[in-house]
Structure formats: C-alpha cells, structure tokens
C-alpha cells in the first residue's frame, strides 16, 4: 500500500506543498563513510501534517535540515511550492521550530515573536502577517508579552518559539522534536496547544519526533524511517477524524494505530540490529 501511495504522491500537483525527490547524503570518507539519507522521496501536500519518526541515526533530523536549507544534499532536490529551498527562504516561506526554543534572552517575548517580521522585511509584501500580540494571546501567552524568556517555564518558551514560526504566515512549518526537552505532562499540554492552533490554521508541517502517540495525534501521515542507511521504511496514513482532542487517546482506533506503528518501529530496529 505504501509503495502505491508514494507513487501516487509523486504524481501529485507539483506546485503546492513540499516535494523531496531522491535526496541522498553521506558523511565522512573511505571506510568510515556513512549514508545518512539514501534516496529519500516524500511529498507533503498543502495543509498536510506529516510526522517523521524513527530510531536515532535514521537521518530524520538531517532530512529536516535539508528541507530547511540548513544542510546540503549530495544528490536529489527539494522543492517548496514549486521553488527551490533558497528561493523559498528568500520569500520567507519556511517557519522553523528548533529543538530548543532558541529565544533571544535580551528580548521580550513580544520582541522575540516579532523577530521574523523585522528580519528580511522585503519578503513581507503581500503577506498575511499576524499581529504578534494577538497570536501570543491565542497561544495562551497574553500575560507574558512583556516578559523575558528566562522568566517563563520551558513549556511556555517552546510555545513562544512556535508562535514565532507562525507569526509571518509561512507556507510550510518545520518542527524538529520541539517538545523533546519537556517533561511528559508539559509535553502533552504543548502538543494539544499545537494541535488546536494548527487545526484552525492549517499549514504544511514536517514534524520530527520520537514519540509514537505524538505522531499519531498530530499527523495526517507518519513517515517511518530506518537507519543505516537512513531511508523511508513505511508511510502510515492516520485516518482519524479531525478536529481531534485528548479523547482520541482512549479510542480503539488510536490504540490499533499505535500498535501498528510500534510493531513497524520494532521491525525496523530489529533489522538494524541484525546488520
């Protein structure tokens, strides 16, 4: 099924969303040469939430870096809305949420979230910029507008980092394990916050995670990657109704899917162990 789906997606509309075509990337030379990404192809449709999950070393973060234009590939190409990554960055089409909030400690939360509007202002023309204050309020940070990052909890800082990625209305959002530094309860709260916000502001999202429930509750599709070499092992459709909320965790459909993803993950890791 996944092969057919991938085939169908490759023929999808070429102008919207993200097209990753045959990306390969290796590090090192000679015997220590390792292939981090081996002919990875993936399409994210407009307004689609795609999670990438897999064991460490499967290249999921490298894939995100390549799509973000922060790292080059040896071969293959990435197109964002029909443009190269460089052109897309010039147009401020990419919103990045890194692993750590990476807020500037000398700026207030409001000034941190406003940063993408003030940077590269040439790309603001014809853009549906959001009001940073309003956005922060809808992220539940209305009380923290004039505060500094150090005065906020880790969860609130990460929420501000997500608001920073949404504020300039980019076509595609790239999130690199944004909740991995938080404790489990906090993580679930932030996850639900993102789910709520995204469901009313659908953007294409590439979301790297190592949490199975997180991938299921948020995504339309889950891309399962295998390591050595880093490649796509399986693409799993998440046919759960939207809008979703916490109640979904307790449903049979969710548990079935979770079982499926975990089994596939185990298979991928067993294979890696055999090699």
């Amino acid at each position, binding site marked *: 099924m996944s092969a057919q789906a991938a085939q169908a997606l490759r023929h999808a509309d070429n102008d919207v969303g993200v097209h990753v075509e045959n990306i390969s990337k290796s590090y090192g030379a000679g015997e220590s040469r390792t292939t981090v990404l081996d002919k990875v192809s993936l399409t994210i449709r407009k307004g689609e939430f795609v999670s990438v999950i897999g064991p460490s070393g499967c290249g999921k973060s490298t894939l995100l870096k390549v799509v*973000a*234009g*922060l790292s080059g590939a040896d071969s293959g190409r990435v197109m964002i809305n029909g443009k190269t990554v460089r052109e897309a*960055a*010039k147009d*401020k089409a*990419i*919103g*990045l949420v*890194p*692993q*750590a909030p*990476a*807020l*500037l*400690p*000398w700026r207030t939360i409001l000034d941190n979230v406003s*940063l*993408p509007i*003030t*940077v*590269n202002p040439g*790309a603001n023309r014809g853009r549906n910029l959001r009001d940073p204050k309003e956005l922060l309020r809808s992220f539940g940070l209305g009380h923290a507008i004039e505060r*500094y990052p*150090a005065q906020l909890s880790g969860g609130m800082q990460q929420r501000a980092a997500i608001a*920073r990625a949404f504020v*300039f209305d980019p076509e595609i959002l*790239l999130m690199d394990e944004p909740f991995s530094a938080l404790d489990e309860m906090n993580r679930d709260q932030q996850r639900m916050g993102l789910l709520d916000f995204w469901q009313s502001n659908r953007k294409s999202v590439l979301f790297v995670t190592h949490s199975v429930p997180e991938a299921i509750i948020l995504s339309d599709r889950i891309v399962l990657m295998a390591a050595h070499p880093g490649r796509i092992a399986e693409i799993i459709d998440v046919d759960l109704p939207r809008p979703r909320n916490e109640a979904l965790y307790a449903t049979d459909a969710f548990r079935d899917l979770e079982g499926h993803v975990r089994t596939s993950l185990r298979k991928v890791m067993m294979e890696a162990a055999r090699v």
Partner: protein
Amino acid sequence: MSDTAAAKTESKARSGQGIVLMEALWNWGLPTITFVVVAALWQFVAVSNPYVLPTWGAIGQSLLNDPGMYWANLLVTCQEIAIGAGAGILFGFLLAVAMAELPSIEKAVMPLIVVVMVTPVVAIAPALVVAFGFGMTPKYIVTGLVVFFPMLVNSLAGLRDVDQKALDVMKTLHASRWEIFRDLRFPGCMPFVFAGLRIAMPLAVVGAAVAEFVAAGQQAGLGSLVTIAAAQANLPVTWASIALLCLLGVLLVSILALIRKRVLWWSDQDVIGR
C-alpha cells in the same frame, strides 16, 4: 491567637534580619578585617623604618599639601587611558568583528598579532619613545596595545559563541549578514566583551604607568610622579601616587561593573568577576 501569630512573624523577621546581618558581616566584615590588619602592620613597620615605608599620616599629609599637583598628574594619566585604552578597545572589537565575518582576515593577521602580543610591552615602550618622542603619542600606543589583545580575543570568542539554533531560525528567514549581526551576534557577544573589558581596565592603568616610567620627566602623569619621587627617595609622594593609581583602577573596574549590571541584566553568564 493573633498575638502569637504576630509574635511569630516578628521573630521570623528578626531571624531574617539576623541572616542579613550575618551576610553583611561575611561580605564586608571579613575583607575589612584583612584591610585593617595589613594597614596596621604597614603603620607598625613605617613608624620604626621611615626609609622603607612612609606612615599613613605622611602619605595623607603629602596629598593634602599639594592636591593640585596630584590632580593635574591624575588627569594626564586619565587622558592616556581614555584615549589610548579607548582606541585599543574599539580597534580590538572592530578587528574581532572583521575576523568573525571574514575568516581570511584572521588567518592573515592573527599570527602577527600574537607575535606582537608576546613581546613584553615594557620592552616596546622605550623604542616607542625613541620613535615618537616624550609626548603623549607613545603613551597612547602602549596603553592601547595592552588592552587591544584581551578585547580582540574575548570579542572574537563572543561573536563565535552564537546560539546555533537561533542562527538556524535566522537562516531559514534568509536574514542578511547585517541582520544576523545586529539581532544575534552583537547583543550575544556582550557578556564576552564585558569579560574582556574587565581584564582590559586594570591593564590600561598598568600600560599608562609603564609608558610614563619610560618617558618620565617631560610630560606629567602619576607614573612619572612615582619614578621622579622614588629617585629622590621621597617616599610619601611615591606612595601617594601609587595609591592614586590603585584607586583609579578600582574606580574603573567599579564603573564597569555598574554598566555591566545595567546592560547585561539578561546574562547569567558571568564570565569573570563582577
């Protein structure tokens, strides 16, 4: 019942005051004791050996007898520090920016700078006097030279110590080099710049004094005053000048700490000292 509650809060407040008092003793009392003991030992030696150390009274008397002379010399030394160290700090920072932005500049210039910096300033100073005469120029150069290196090295380390994840965010926004400098590198390097200044300030006083030693005579300055008075075995003037140099250093470091507190309130990264 409200009485006992009141008594409780009162006793709490009192024990709170006790802690504050203990802290004050710890922070101020102990160093004060050290200073008093050393000063007493000094006085003890000075009273029986007037040709080794002047008494505190003699130093104070000398300062009071001719405050105008000390003031004039202090101003000269301050001018050397303001202009010489000011230029050295600025140039050190600007070169660090150039090196951070263009690695080829660092490759080309850094070896020369290291060679110059391992040459003792005390050795360079007489040569500069020969070249530039007994005026202010060699003093500016020596003072600038001693602060230049710590400023350069610290600023460069700071400019390179950017938050990599924040830099990634800037790059995906296609931020220009100037925007990355303005919003990220420049404010981010300030803790390192202030650490550099913390090293540079006392060094500036050293540089000014050393330059004046070498070129004593023509132009005034507290360093010149020290050499001239010492040559005449005038211990009260010698030590009064030394004390003023010391006070100048303390003052500069204290002003710097005040500025740091206002500018770098967001940084918990106290690279060295306060």
